[in-house]
């Protein structure tokens, strides 16, 4: 086949004047796929379980982790509560935070990193002290969550202490579009609420109190009893 081709005229790949498809977007290195996020040093030995003698752990954090380990038949079950506690202490699951948890739990940092990178609420990059999760799943997006999220991220661009993220369904479609602000569910949100949320966060007040889910009565009219 290739021999025949070599003798004949060069194969024509297409014979129309303009492309049918748009050009394929490519990354700077020429590939259509992003490749590794970060360079991995393959010459280094894998990290072992950190030595407690050289890994100082804040007492409060150690207590929380050990209490979590004691609650399960298998102490490894405490990995998520322990990483939650470390994230609270350090602001994010930094390499230092993961080392500290690993030292207390007697597991490798790689194991904990595999867990931390799996779950959306554990973050392995620096973030602001305040978390705002905007639900952009189907029920909220039908009610304008995508626009809300964009407006909110734009408004938070200069806020160092506030990290706004779009999130999958948070389980509060009855107050769509909604957001979870440091764990407090608020909604239905309008664009005017964005500034209020940020102001409440800066002032350290309960966020948007009149729109908090916790005060919302059941929608079912029969739930009030006869």
């Amino acid at each position, binding site marked *: 086949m290739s021999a025949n081709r070599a003798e004949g005229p060069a*194969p024509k*790949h*297409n014979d*129309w004047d*303009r*492309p*049918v*498809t*748009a050009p394929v977007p490519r990354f700077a290195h020429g590939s259509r796929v992003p490749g590794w996020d970060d360079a991995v040093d393959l010459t280094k030995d894998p990290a072992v379980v950190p030595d407690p003698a050289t890994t100082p752990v804040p007492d409060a954090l150690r207590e929380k982790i050990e209490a979590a380990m004691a*609650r*399960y*038949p*298998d102490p*490894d*079950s*405490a*990995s*998520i*509560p322990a*990483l*939650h506690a470390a994230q609270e202490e350090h602001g994010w699951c930094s390499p230092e935070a993961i080392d500290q948890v690993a030292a207390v739990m007697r597991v490798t940092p790689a194991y904990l990193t*595999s*867990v931390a990178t*799996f*779950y*959306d*609420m*554990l973050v392995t990059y620096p973030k602001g002290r305040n978390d705002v*999760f905007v639900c952009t*799943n*189907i*029920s909220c*997006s*039908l*009610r304008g969550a995508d626009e809300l999220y964009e407006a909110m991220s734009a408004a938070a661009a200069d806020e160092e202490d506030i990290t706004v993220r779009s*999130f*999958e*369904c*948070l*389980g*509060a*479609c*009855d*107050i*769509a579009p909604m957001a*979870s602000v440091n*764990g*407090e*569910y608020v909604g239905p949100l309008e664009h005017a609420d964005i500034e209020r949320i940020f102001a409440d966060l800066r002032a350290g007040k309960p966020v948007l109190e009149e729109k908090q*889910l*916790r005060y919302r*009565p*059941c*929608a*079912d009219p*029969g*739930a*009030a*009893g006869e």
Partner: protein
Amino acid sequence: MKKILFDRIDEPGLNTLAVYERRGGYGALRKALAMSPQEVLDELLTSAIRGRGGAGFQMGKKVSFLPKGDMDKYLVCNADESEPGTFKDRELMQKSPHMLIEGIVIAAYAGGIDRAFIYIRGEYAYQADILDAAIEEARAAGYIGERILGSDHTLSLVLHRGAGAYICGEETGLLDSLEGKRGNPRLKPPFPALEGLYDGPTLINNVETLSTVPHIIAMGGAEYAKIGTETSTGTKLVSVSGDVKRPGNYEIELGTPSREIIFDLAGGPPDGRTVKLWFPGGSSAPVLTAEDLDIPYDFDSMAKAGSMLGSGAIIVVDDSHPVLDVAMKLAKFYAHESCGKCVPCREGTNWTVKMLERIESGEATPMDLEIMASVQEQIIGNCLCVLGDAMAMPIGSIIEKYRPELEAHIEAARERAGTGSLEDVVALGVADQHAGPMPVH
């Protein structure tokens, strides 16, 4: 209809033991402990209650699959409610946590189980705090712990908070996550009833199912089975959301016409709008159209209509939204949440997103719909869990039922992007010669 789960649910202080006991709370537990475990199990079997989490498997049967004898057995309450559109368990746990705890203690008694866990999604921080306080109260009052109320039944109960992953609502993914690992689903069999948490026999049930257990014991299984239809007994909490006037949770008798739920209870779509499509059981259920509104809302009627009751979450989409936007939301969600363990799901969800983006950017031809439909078929049934199927079923049904609209969308997008009308493409012969959207040489 008399409410069972939602009966005076907004009563102030119902989340405390004092109010719950005043209303007769933990009475069903006393009644159960006076019976033998087998008698309690028989009541559950007679009630024929089907699991409220999604699969709709009979709870009593699940309990009866547990091996008998002296061994470490576990009960895990699945409170990782993350199916898009579902928010019923949240309301139950927040407002009546003791109802769930009582149900767990009774179910554990029926199965001879002495260790229980509640796996709650990490985002439900407020509900988790309420549950933690309720567990503490129940423990202090002797409803949890050693030799409960003077009987032989012993149970420990631990609340475990997740950290945000849809796949952890899948029972085996949940078990791995509870063991402290990434939430990857496991190969079945062995089923969790034989080999589950820490390799021990494990009973996994949804919050709503377990919360119903005290009521079944209180009124008797036979009485409970009179509610609803023959094969879908009892009441069901339905979360209605999307384009309706009064989104929220409603308790209905199974078998109620869907139209009554969407229009009478939830108020129907906004004025001037009509129902375009709706998901009867969360975003994983194949979509139904406006013509299907009179189908009774129960497990078997939904299955007969080619969809499923799932978690009992109705999402209504009105005629102002292009169907492509709905498909794109779905596909992106499942692509984000795929754990990556099985290739058909990991690749299938991602390629479906790319193909939908091709439509939006004006590069697609109707052949892409063919390919997309075949990708969905290759996902279904080929993975360890049903996450991939959960995308493939609704996307497949959207392609099947809304093909003319999608084709019009393709044409309009090509017009916008200036990639040439479809007639030109067909004239070039590309569409006829090749089975793919790209010329293959």
